[in-house]
């Protein structure tokens, strides 16, 4: 249990008596960091969360932004961002799979069809053949693939870094997208008039799996507790989820046809108790649940396991009784849940009450009876923290680089080389809506509304090499990079999500990093005019020895596209076009792959929002003028890596193209864009440097040194083949 003695005292004080066993477990879950955000909420309010595009901001299971109009209806994109770090470190396959499973339910329960997922991953170093990190890095990927593939949701974006700082604590973040009409949103709060409504529990039979998951993820992992920790990890069932999703789509349709308003919420941390209490209290109601009516996998489960266990693949509906029979028929008969998984079903387990109590009945006894506002009320841990410090001193001036020697080292670097061996296990084409698949460009693009040209782009970012140096800088850079990636495919960025992956908040320095990172996110988002619409906080990412992960504010950016036909296509398009570098040309390599390869320290590139906005404006102007042929955001490995990717993508599409390029140090990661344009006369050349031209042979000629694109491609493709063979 994660509750501290002083918190137990506080519970007794508020109840006016000692809590029952069930109540104690319930508060343990609700007051965990995972559910309550008790040490992070004070910072999170600093994030901007509104814009004309936002329909639902943070606070529900997922955020919702406007996509566009089609056939007289307004469509919207639903997005959720979650982490499953602790479970994935202990049991990586199941932990990562249930990460996908959970975030998909967050999107589903808003009434949406789930259209895509992304997986930002941070693993330890895997060079040692016997390392546990290899097992984690492989199994987590297998788990993500197995789950996403089976439910039929394409994996369209993601990234992966392999750094020592994640040796003891991997990070498995997951982002999911959904689509719906704005008029069809289902909220997770019981609406006005819900007094007496049925609470309908749907899905897998409740078992002991995942009991204590919320509090487990809110403490430091201790290897000595390995067996107990494994028990706290949930068991994924993507097969059942596949059917549960489709049955729920049918229920959405039926409710819409009958004009029935209902509320729906995913069962996640805190299980049935957490879900039902939050659904009811968010509407100003109470709830009463009869635990004997919960479909269980085995008899004799103690009431606190039935109430709080985190068995997967479950949803809770609140709906007027008149609609319930048809909903039960759809789940139990048309989609035959009880035939597919032992005792899976939809059933009425309780009701919404006007009286604001939260009551659990078990065998005729009220095993929990508390003021619902005390249970779900906001609590805060105002812990002390210290101002975040930059961990790397300024470096000396950059040495001149020998491109011939350094370029292959950059391309084979573990954070730059091809990710295909990893993502080819993911189905990124299922649903038939993928416009830019995983790995084809800086962002994944989907055409989520059948028959419409509307598109949505999704990209993630969060460079842990920056995080190891400066938490705030890393957070700002993550916002900028994710946004650039979405712009590079031709989308208009509309919203951000974040997951704050940090160490122990009781360590004032770690806690200070969290505070600074949130400030960094807020600053960058405000400067770019973007809102955060969904997010998650994962703390205690440290080993028992006390070493925490590098500060990791991982960000996703969602962009919208009016016509997917205007998406910037992958790869160089034709010979004889100009290559422009749009962005800062500062010679700084702090936190870069180049610095790692050369073993040097260097200044972090300066972040200038004026320069960033002007770079974005130039790219967008090139696009609307119709002269932008291809584009890449400059990130890990610098501009030359971006150029190599453009050449590789042209090669994949059967175009033998290359480029001649002149630029002193093409490996600095100072941001910006590398653009192939057919005509640069229309563009205001301030902030633009012409760095080269495309040529009609598969060669990159850099400062006079020629590289064969096929050879470079082989070099870049190989490093992860062995790990993900």
């Amino acid at each position: 249990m994660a509750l501290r003695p002083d918190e137990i005292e506080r519970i007794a004080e508020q109840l006016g008596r000692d809590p029952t066993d069930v109540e104690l477990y319930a508060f343990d879950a609700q007051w965990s960091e995972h559910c309550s955000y008790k040490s992070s909420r004070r910072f999170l309010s600093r994030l901007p969360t509104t814009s004309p595009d936002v329909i639902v901001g943070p606070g529900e299971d997922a955020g919702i932004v406007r996509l566009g109009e089609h056939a007289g209806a307004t469509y919207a994109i639903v997005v959720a961002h979650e982490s499953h770090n602790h479970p994935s470190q202990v049991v990586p396959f199941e932990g990562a799979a249930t990460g996908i499973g959970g975030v998909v339910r967050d999107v589903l329960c808003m009434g949406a069809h789930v259209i895509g997922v992304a997986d930002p991953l941070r693993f330890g170093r895997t060079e040692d053949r016997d390392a546990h990190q290899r097992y984690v890095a492989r199994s987590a990927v297998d788990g993500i693939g197995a789950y996403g593939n089976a439910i039929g949701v394409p994996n369209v974006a993601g990234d992966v870094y392999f750094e020592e700082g994640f040796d003891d604590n991997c990070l498995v973040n997951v982002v999911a997208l959904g689509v719906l009409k704005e008029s069809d949103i289902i909220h997770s709060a019981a609406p006005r008039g819900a007094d007496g409504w049925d609470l309908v529990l749907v899905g897998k039979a409740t078992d002991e799996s995942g009991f204590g998951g919320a509090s487990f993820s809110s403490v430091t992992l201790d290897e000595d507790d390995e067996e107990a920790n494994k028990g706290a990890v949930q068991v994924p069932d993507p097969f059942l989820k596949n059917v549960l999703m489709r049955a729920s789509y049918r229920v959405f349709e039926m409710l819409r046809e009958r004009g029935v308003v209902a509320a729906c919420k995913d069962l996640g941390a805190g299980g049935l108790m957490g879900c039902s209490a939050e659904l009811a209290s968010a509407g100003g109601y109470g709830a009463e649940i009869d635990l004997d009516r919960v479909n269980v996998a085995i008899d004799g489960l103690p009431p606190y396991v039935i109430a709080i266990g985190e068995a997967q693949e479950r949803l809770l509906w609140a709906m007027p009784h008149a609609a319930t029979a048809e909903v039960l028929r759809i789940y139990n008969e048309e989609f035959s849940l009880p035939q597919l998984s032992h005792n899976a079903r939809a059933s009425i387990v309780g009701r919404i009450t006007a009286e604001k109590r939260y009551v659990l009945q078990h065998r005729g006894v009220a095993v929990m009876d508390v003021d619902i506002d005390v249970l779900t009320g906001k609590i805060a841990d105002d812990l002390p923290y210290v101002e975040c410090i930059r961990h790397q001193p300024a470096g000396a001036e950059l040495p001149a680089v020998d491109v011939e020697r350094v370029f292959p080292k950059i391309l084979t670097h573990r954070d730059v080389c091809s990710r295909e061996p990893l993502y080819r296990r993911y189905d990124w084409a299922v649903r038939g809506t993928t416009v830019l698949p995983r790995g084809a460009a800086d962002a994944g693009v989907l055409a989520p509304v059948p028959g419409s040209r509307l598109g949505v782009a999704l990209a993630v970012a969060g460079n842990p090499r920056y995080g190891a140096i400066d938490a705030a800088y890393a957070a700002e850079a993550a916002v900028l990079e994710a946004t650039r990636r979405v712009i590079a495919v031709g989308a208009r960025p509309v919203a951000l999500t974040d997951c704050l992956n940090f160490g122990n908040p009781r360590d004032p320095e770690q806690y200070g990093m969290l505070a600074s990172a949130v400030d960094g996110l807020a600053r960058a988002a405000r400067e770019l005019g973007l809102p955060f619409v969904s997010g998650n906080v994962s703390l205690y990412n440290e080993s028992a020895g006390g070493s925490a992960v590098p500060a990791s504010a991982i960000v996703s950016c969602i962009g919208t596209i009016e016509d997917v036909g205007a998406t910037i296509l992958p790869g160089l398009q034709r010979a004889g076009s100009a290559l422009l570098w749009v962005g800062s040309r500062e010679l700084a390599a702090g936190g870069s792959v180049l610095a790692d390869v050369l073993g040097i320290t260097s200044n972090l590139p300066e972040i200038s929002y004026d320069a960033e906005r002007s770079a974005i404006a130039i790219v967008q102007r090139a696009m609307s003028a119709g002269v932008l042929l291809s584009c890449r955001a400059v990130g890990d490995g610098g501009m030359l890596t971006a150029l190599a990717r453009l050449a590789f993508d042209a090669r994949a599409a059967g175009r033998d193209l290359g480029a001649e390029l002149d630029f002193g140090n093409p490996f600095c990661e100072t941001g910006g864009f590398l653009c192939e344009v057919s005509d640069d006369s229309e563009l205001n050349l301030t902030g633009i440097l012409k760095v080269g031209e495309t040529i009609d042979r598969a060669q990159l000629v850099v400062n006079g040194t020629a590289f064969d694109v096929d050879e470079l491609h082989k070099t870049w493709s190989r490093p992860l083949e062995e790990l993900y063979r």
Partner: protein
Amino acid sequence: MKRRIAVLTFPGTNSEDETLRLLRDCGGDAYLVHWSRAEMLSQYDAYVLPGGFAYEDRIRAGAVAAFDPAMEYVIAGARSGKLVLGICNGAQILLEAGLVPGTGELRRPTAAFTDNRPSGHFICRHVYAKLAVDPDRSPITAGLPAGAVVPAYASNGEGCLTAPAQRLRELQDRGHVAFVYSHADGTLGEDAIPNGSALGCAGLLNVEGNILAIMPHPERDAWNFQHLERRIGEDALAPSGGAVLFRSFVEAVNR
């Protein structure tokens, strides 16, 4: 009057929506039919089994679904000459049911799509499937030009055709191997085969030619927006190469 096509789903199917959409785009009068409503299947004139993981691919891909009561209707329909198209998991189900190649007893498969080689795991990759029989060998392929190259996605863990050597020869010699993996220009090569499939086989016909089991998904490269080799300025919603197979199927159903 248009003939009606049933897109049959099992628990675990995941490609039904795009399959249905493409059939309709190609002029088909198509509907989803869930396994729990299998008795409705006899009212339909043709069947399409879409991709996914029916019954979680327990035992082997398609092995459990082949025993689902819904398959009785598919078997009866196929025997009466109705056209049947199985894609990916749907193809695996048709082989497990013994309908394709149809040279043995029902539900005693004589060939199977098994674990991808050499990887042994799920692979998602863009591929080309080349028509390797005379188009008139089957009404389903009759609308394709000879040697047609159909772009598609191989997205499966078990796509490697496996059978004893003698049987493979028979499949080849008797015109069962309807599609083979190729390059975009129709040339053949080991590097065009994503999964080690014997004979480079991407699709098989039954003896009579009214049932086609194809592993790669043409419905995932059937509109320009899905086609990565599209050119700047091409209409995103216009059909791309994968649509031709569905169009040929729909024409055959309505003929």
